[in-house]
């Protein structure tokens, strides 16, 4: 048989599963904690605060320009830790595989997870695999959880925005959502839109080094920049005003959004961070962002205001003002 497919018994706990774990996961993720093959991984921590997070990934298609479900599962969890200023250390992974999944695809996904983890400086130290009968899942679902250490003196959270603060972003918005959508719907555009999926801990580290008092960091994933900023406005009890002409959007993303009637402000990102910073330190943080490869396109896109608490407004290019509401319903399903 030329094509190897995932079989039900590879999740059954027997020999086939052990072969899968040893032959693929332990070898790909290679680290001493995972190689112990114990029921849980045990590691030392220094005194201090731990950050912990979990996320499940069901993106369709599983391979898209700029990444796949595996690299996304690592990046997403690393980013969720980074958004609290934590230094990500360890990740766990749970796979739910559909019987009949191309084993070559699984290998590609697992090895790109290993690459993503290595690049982000985290280790995948515990895992689980289940295989469900054909039709009971869609190819592969992945859950990752992560732990990280929050250095002392760091207090980054959604409730910390204050009137006068600057709203920064590290680059163009909407790339990931449009990359996935164009791939899924077979939209043939002149150039392929690539997902921005990336681990942001390096960039965030540099930003915190420039100014440890950053108030809010948030990655605008599902629901996009608009929804994320609405969450922050609500949590902090402040208003946020965006400047349309300052929001960076790639030409092809803007074009694809126009064709499909989508608003790029609501389209998901997987390698972007929104930072809210006191006005007198915004230049320092902005410079730090620009000096990192993932922050070259960094811009100040708005400001925090005291009026209209809990709401986000946009000053449009032609000088009008309008509300930027939270995403209601699903604009694009299964993008992460």
């Amino acid at each position, binding site marked *: 048989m030329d094509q190897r497919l995932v079989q039900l018994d590879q999740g059954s706990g027997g020999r086939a599963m052990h072969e899968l774990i040893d032959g693929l996961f332990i070898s790909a993720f290679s680290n001493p904690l995972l190689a112990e093959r114990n029921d849980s991984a045990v590691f030392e921590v220094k005194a201090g605060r731990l950050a912990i997070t979990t996320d499940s990934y069901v993106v369709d298609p599983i391979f898209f320009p700029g990444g796949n479900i595996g690299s996304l599962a690592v990046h997403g969890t690393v980013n969720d830790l980074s958004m609290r200023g934590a230094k990500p250390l360890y990740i766990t992974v749970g796979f739910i595989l559909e019987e009949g999944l191309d084993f070559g695809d699984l290998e590609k996904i697992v090895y790109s997870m290993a690459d993503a983890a290595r690049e982000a400086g985290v280790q995948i130290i515990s895992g689980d695999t289940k295989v469900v009968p054909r039709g009971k899942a869609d190819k592969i679902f992945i859950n990752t959880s992560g732990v990280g250490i929050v250095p002392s003196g760091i207090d980054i959270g959604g409730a910390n925005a204050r009137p006068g603060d600057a709203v920064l972003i590290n680059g163009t918005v909407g790339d990931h959502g449009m990359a996935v959508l164009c791939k899924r719907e077979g939209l043939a555009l002149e150039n392929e839109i690539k997902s921005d999926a990336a681990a942001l801990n390096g960039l965030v580290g540099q930003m915190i080094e420039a100014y440890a008092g950053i108030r809010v960091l948030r990655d605008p994933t599902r629901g996009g920049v608009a929804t994320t900023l609405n969450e922050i406005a609500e949590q902090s009890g402040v208003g946020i005003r965006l400047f349309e*002409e300052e929001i960076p959007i790639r030409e092809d993303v803007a*074009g694809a959004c126009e064709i499909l009637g989508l608003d790029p402000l609501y389209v998901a990102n997987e390698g972007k961070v929104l930072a809210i910073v006191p006005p007198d330190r915004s230049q320092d943080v902005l410079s730090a962002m620009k000096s990192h490869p993932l922050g070259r396109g960094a811009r100040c896109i708005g400001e925090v205001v005291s009026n*209209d608490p809990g709401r986000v407004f946009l000053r449009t290019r*032609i*000088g009008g003002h309008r509300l930027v509401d939270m995403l209601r*319903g699903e604009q694009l399903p299964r993008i992460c």
Partner: protein
Amino acid sequence: MKYLDEYRDPQLAKSLIEALQTRDYKRGEIRLMEICGTHTVSIFRSGLRKLLPPQIRLISGPGCPVCVTANEDIDRAIWLAGQPGVILTTFGDLVRVPGSTSSLNVERSKGADVRIVYASLDALEIARQNPGREVVFIGIGFETTAPTIAAAIKQASMSGVNNFSVFSVHKVLPPAMRALLEAREVRLDGFLCPGHVSIVTGSGIYEEVVKNYGVPCVVTGFEPLDILQGISSAVELVESGRAEVVNMYRRVVTRDGNAAARKIMDEIFEPADSTWRGLGPIPGSGLGFRREWKNFDAVSRFSMPEIKVKEHPGCKCGEVLRGVMTPPECGLFRKVCNPQDPKGPCMVSGEGTCGAYHRYHQ
């Protein structure tokens, strides 16, 4: 950015707004109806409404296809989705529109096979891939979408795909414009006419409205600058007492429109009476199947029973679509009716007036 930024030029927009603000208005308030939902959304997205002087009032009209689809047609679509072996295919917004007792979304969660497609040809492809099933596509939209759906029907016929049919709830605009003017419920001084529809039909279709009712019609595009130029032109016509059709979207719209698109539309469809939400039955305002193409008509293929239609009490979508009420004047707006739990289609659709007010208006 190519093709977009030049129509969003802030300086040009500013000078047009200034000209509108400083000009002399001899006739008091000028009421312009933007017929098209895409115009409504663009006006809100650019924050244009608040930049206009008080003498200019923009009234949103019945140009959102999902919104004007009558409750009875939503109920019929839901009935179709419930027939054994049927795959119901539709554009996205429609699945969330509440009918008398349910929505396609609710029926889907109960097990009906309802699939969202981006184009009618995708529905045809689903029919090809599922030869044992009946694939019904809900044909919705104005003159803009009707030709593409006609093309899918023709292709189904040519390639012998017999398990494909269309439930046509298409509408055409001029009869609705006439109905609005005949009803005299709201004074209209001018129309901003939809660019996309006019690409297909040509700006000529508005000549009759201008001639019979003396109301100027300005065809315009969808970028903020297009709309501003359209408004400026309409104001000029109203102030100088000239009833004319002016085409401000000349980069794509001609007087006669797209002959090929009209031809295929005319080949498959013929004018039919159609019921509009808010406006009621309007003669010749829909598109029915010509006799030779009846076998692709879902209404002929399935014998639909009479469905007892129930409107949501309190929903003012009809009034909003006729321009006699604005969404904030509706008792349900933002209280029990919102985009997550819409009571009427104007809140569901991406082009609906209530949805636009909810999303963009403070």
